[in-house]
């Protein structure tokens, strides 16, 4: 198990190095010089050159890469070109919106998907299964911003239970903050839970056909006991894979939902920075997201090993 963990950790480190190289050089190739963008169309060449040197853009690419990576390792993501504030600070404010939102949505999605998937699998081909499958089909087909608008219409405008947008902030207390994240989290969770429920159902159905499920029934377990004791854990590998992918998506892909609910999250930050050619912010936020995604993959790998003893003994 230790060897397995170390191996996964090594691959995590290598992935991060490769990702940082790719991010840095891809963004370097993108046209648009931040200095000339900031100074506008009528700027003098020598003013631009002065600004470039002030921003640290006049040294070699390799040097800039090393400075960037070295800074990140010490928790310094550089200074935003446009706002002249440390990027660390900008990310710090927003990640406390995005990360809880992603976790909230993922929890909701799992809470909906697990029972729905298990129910559908245990009633395969019967009306209950068809109803769940129909609902998930709808959940996948309808875009999440439409759900968002419907939720705002019903719960914010008509019932007035929630505010229609904005973030209360953690300084107003956890309850208030979570309340303002509730509608966005539901809007994000619905399509994800539809996908997850379908994966859960088909993974369970695959397991139900296995020989050891018949063995379990021959021992005297009821259908339900066999499903819960022997089926569920064996179905977890594909389900864990999807949960890992969904977390990554929820973290970075919440941009439209953040827009609908006026949430100051990472998605909005990255969108604004791209429009302003604020390269250092784009690079840093993307790198942070990549780090989180790779970290989640690492955790999912560890979860596989926790579920399956065959992975533990294989080195």
């Amino acid at each position, binding site marked *: 198990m230790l060897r397995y963990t170390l191996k996964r950790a090594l691959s995590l480190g290598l992935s991060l190095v490769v990702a940082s190289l790719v991010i840095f050089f891809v963004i370097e190739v993108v046209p648009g010089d931040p200095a000339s963008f900031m100074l506008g169309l009528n700027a003098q060449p020598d003013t631009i050159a002065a600004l470039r040197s002030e921003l640290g853009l006049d040294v070699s690419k390799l040097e800039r890469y090393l400075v960037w990576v070295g800074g990140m390792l010490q928790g310094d993501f550089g200074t935003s070109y446009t706002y002249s504030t440390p990027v660390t600070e900008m990310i710090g404010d927003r990640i406390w919106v995005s990360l809880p939102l992603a976790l909230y949505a993922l929890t909701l999605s799992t809470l909906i998907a697990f029972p729905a998937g298990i129910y559908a699998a245990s009633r395969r081909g019967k009306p209950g299964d068809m109803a769940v499958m129909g609902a998930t089909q709808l959940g996948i087909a309808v875009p999440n911003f439409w759900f968002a608008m419907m939720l705002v219409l019903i719960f914010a405008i008509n019932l007035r239970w929630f505010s229609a947008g904005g973030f209360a902030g953690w300084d107003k207390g956890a309850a208030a903050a979570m309340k303002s994240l509730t509608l966005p989290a539901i809007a994000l969770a619905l399509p994800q839970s539809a996908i997850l429920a379908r994966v859960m159902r088909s993974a369970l159905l695959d397991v139900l056909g296995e020989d*050891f499920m018949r*063995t379990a029934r*021959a021992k*005297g377990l*009821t259908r339900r006991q066999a499903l819960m004791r022997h089926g569920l854990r064996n179905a977890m590998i594909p389900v864990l894979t999807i949960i890992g992918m969904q977390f990554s998506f929820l973290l970075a892909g919440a941009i439209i939902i953040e827009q609908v609910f006026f949430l100051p999250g990472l998605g909005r930050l990255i969108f604004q920075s791209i429009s302003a050619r604020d390269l250092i912010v784009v690079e840093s936020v993307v790198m942070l997201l990549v780090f989180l995604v790779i970290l989640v993959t690492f955790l999912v790998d560890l979860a596989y090993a926790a579920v399956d*003893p065959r992975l533990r*003994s*294989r*080195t």
Partner: protein
Amino acid sequence: MSLLSVQNLSLSIGPLPILKDVTFSIAPGEILAVTGESGSGKSMTALAVMQLLPDSAQTTGHIMLRDEELTAQSEKSLCAMRGNCIGMVFQEPMTALNPLHTIGQQVVETIRMHAVMPKAEAEAQAAAMLTRVGLPQDRFPLSRYPHELSGGQRQRVVIAMAIARRPRLLIADEPTTALDVTTQAKILDLLKDLVAEYDMGLLMITHDLAVVADMADRIVVMRKGEVVEQGDTKHLLANMQHPYTKALFKASGHQVDLPSAKDGTPAILSVRDAVRDYALPRTQLFAPRAYHRAVKGVSFDIHHGERVGLVGESGCGKSTLTRAILGLEPLQDGSITAFGAPVGPDMPATSRIKTQVVFQDPYSSFNPRHRVACILTEPFHLVDTPPTGDALTQVISDVLTDVGLQPSDSQKYIHEFSGGQRQRIAIARALITKPELIIFDEAVSALDVSIRAQILDLIAELSRRHNLAYLFISHDLSVVRSVTDRVLVMQNGEIVEQGETEKVFTAPQHPYTQALINAAPVLPDLAALTSQTETSHDSA
């Protein structure tokens, strides 16, 4: 009173009738074998007794365990009965256990499912049961996982689970079909001992008549969902009444009419000190890579027109050697030459023409989207100038006729054929380039006995007609004995004995060969049995 009595059991799934009027009974301490070919309804009979049938199954008739009618029980009382009064052992030990639970957890589960007791007590019972089936705690603690055990050991765990509650009836569905002969013999002995020790009834489902004759007190022969004949083993074997029973036994002990071997023909395949290593996964980053030696310096020849058998248990290196002979994998040492040219992955395509292969599984070795004509002509990729037009049509119809099929079959798809016909197509595909050597890799192992007899006859006939040499690889000793002139016995990557087939089988020299031959179940000599019962009748 009988322990289990099945009366007029009929079963259908949707409109499809599966069982018709099946009647038999088992007494305590008795072994009843239900036998028949695939599709005869043997396994469905077993599942019907367990009441684990598919939801759409409709049954009529009675299944009585002592004085309880199983067909009338609620699901709840059936659950209380399964694993407690009736235990079941399945065919595939590799998949019958949950890979994520330890063997201890799985045996304990059966015990605590039916009895309220502290965990420690259940674990002590499980440990005792595992020890009883031959898995002592010092070597196989409860904390072992299934993937850490071999097939035979896993089957012992399945048996321990099935008998943990000392059920009155044990059902074993093809319990040794997936195992090697020496392991099979041990598992059969274990089952026999357990039946005697616990005075259980054993309902054993098997297609292997040699096992049946060896194990069973009574036999039920089934065909297409009906019982065609049943009775006391010795009596039934001596006085077979139904033509199907007779045909089944005849096919099981089928002797092929092999043309006599010619001496002094030149060697077409020479294997010299062949060594094949597989790299093991790295355990440490910078340590030198470890290797597993699957074939350890094997040498033999196959002469023109000679029929050679290769026997050995799973993992002995048979398949590895086959892949090397076909030039699919490189050797690490030694050499293989076929028809005067070296064999290896880099050999020119044209050198592959004279050696062809037939695989085991007639269901998965064809592309289902290709017509038969397309499948058959695939080896022509090896030929510089393949036949075209009318010549091609002629070649295809010749080769189909050769294997006993119709020329018109060339336009059909593979799903339109039965298992036996598919194996004929596989042979036709091997024959189309007019090879001089064919490798049969377990080519008849997946077939029913009557189909197997036909395919063996076909192989003998083709060998006569085309003067074919072949290497016949099989775990089934009786088949190898009937279709080969010479036999190689392989163990742990080495050929431990080789010689004329009859000599090796009648007077095996190497201890491993002796063990193999002793372990292999043999059909009783029917003629001897008949005269035996006649004399006993006369004296009475």
